């Protein structure tokens, strides 16, 4: 019982520390925080049914978005996947996935930038934001 209390106290301390740090962090980057917040809404509507609330995807079908080269790597490729979709088996972190990702070309540049900024800064990911200008540049080539 004493041990449980010790662990709980430790949890509170760690939580407070994380909370304070993230508060400071979000104060420093208000632009990202707003984009992440808008991106969450886009994710809930268009991405969550397949990639799931935890970003872990569905085994064998829909790939995870957690610390993968697709999510954290080349932003142009990532934007292209959202705009054009993806078919055929792919390997992500040692597992294979074969469901179809539809094109999301109907999303606005702002929505694509926001949702990718959200994904790149959620599910333990931490990466630079995706800007509207970057999406616009890729869209011009995709069309």
């Amino acid at each position, binding site marked *: 019982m004493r041990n449980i209390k010790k662990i709980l106290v430790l*949890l509170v301390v760690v939580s407070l520390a994380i909370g304070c740090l993230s*508060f400071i962090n*979000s104060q420093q980057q208000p632009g990202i925080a707003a984009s992440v917040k808008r991106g969450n809404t886009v994710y809930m509507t268009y991405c969550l049914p397949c990639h*799931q609330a935890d970003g872990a995807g569905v085994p064998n079908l829909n790939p995870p978005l957690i610390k993968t080269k697709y999510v954290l790597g080349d932003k142009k490729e990532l934007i292209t996947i959202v705009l054009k979709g993806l078919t055929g088996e792919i390997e992500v972190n040692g597992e*294979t996935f*074969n469901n*179809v990702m539809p094109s999301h070309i109907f999303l606005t540049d702002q929505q694509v930038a926001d949702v990718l900024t959200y994904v790149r800064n959620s599910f333990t990911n931490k990466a630079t934001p995706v800007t509207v200008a970057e999406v616009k540049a890729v869209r011009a080539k995709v069309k």
Partner: protein
Amino acid sequence: MKLYFIKAKFFFRMQMPTNLNLLFFVQLFFVFSSFGNDTTGIKKAKAAPPETGITLPTGFTSTAFADSLGNARHIAVAPGGEVFVKLQRLKNGKGIIRLKDMNGDGKADRMMSFGSYTGTGVAVKNGYLYASSNKGIFRYKLNDQNEVIDTSKAEMIVTGLVDKGQHNSKSIALDDAGNIYVNIGAPSNACQVQDRTKGSPGQDPCPILDSAAGIWQFKVDRLNQSYGDGVRYVTGTRNVVGLDWNTSVKELYIMQHGRDGLNQMFPELYTEEQSAELPAEELLLARKNANFGWPYCYYDPNQQKKILNPEYGGDAKKQGRCAGVDTPLYGFPGHWAPNSLLFYTGNMFPERYKNGAFIAFHGSWNRAPLKQGGYFVAFVPFKDGKPAGKWEPFAEGFAGKEVYQPRDAVYRPCGLAQGPDGSLFISDDVKGRIWKVTYNSNQ
């Protein structure tokens, strides 16, 4: 206290913290609310014995027959109790595993593997082992010890079936007249011009129906058969992973996986809640030349009708061309993914199980943001080839907890097979556990 915890958990799940601030508050709330309280107040799942992880009705027990086999899909048991397992991913370069319990303690102690292809289907009949890749079916001659005589000599009996990744499990069942039935799933959700894409219309007629979205019948003993040699036995099935020949009425029964994404594609017609429940996962009596309506129709268990799919002009009520389509014997809640069907013919279980149907529900992913469902084995009592009562849970607890995302699940039931003594085997394709379920009336 219990209520607060559930609320906090629900809030966390549904809102998804947009940054760590929210996570921090939720966590803080949880931590403080735990103080000074008995943590046993937190809702616990029905206790499952730790050695097997699953719960069963009174009188039934299970053993972990084998573990950590890999992506164990379907299983088949030979007359000597040898269990053959088909793997969806190669393990140590092999795709089929043979297991045997030599000392009779309910756990396999001999194991060998062979076959360099992946797949789902496996069956044993009249001295042969049948196994499917995602493109065709092979068979191997067994000796009187039910060992494959030459694992390098696989006879290819069916080849060249559609495999485009999506819905490519070639599940198999055999009748007593020398025929083998194979599912050829549609590599599509609803035959749209652009698959799973909002606003893309349904193709009419759907060109996929010629070579997929049905059950094909082939001969068990002819080599190199393909579409031209087989018979399209039934059509209009999107994907069937579980199927079985019911020997008591000499008919094929199949379990259809219904379509996805009604709310995603048509939010103006279906709420998230409706989309989680619709369409039904269907138990179908697959008589020759039956048409179950995919991609034009889906089954709504509330209206008890086949309804026109919205990609083909449906409005969630209209039947249109679906009025004359064959209907299911039974509709289960949406997206549970019935991956195996087995008619019980053994004498070990109580009489009410005889000729009834066990169904392994792999578990859903397309009910998000709502809680997922399935992840258990159900039983449906049967009389004269028809369901004779409501389905009931048989084996539960595979997931280990409530599942909001499929990766939460510890195990996912995928295959069923009956042992020569009437025991029931269940396979899992997350870790590759095989359970052996037995019954003892004295327990």
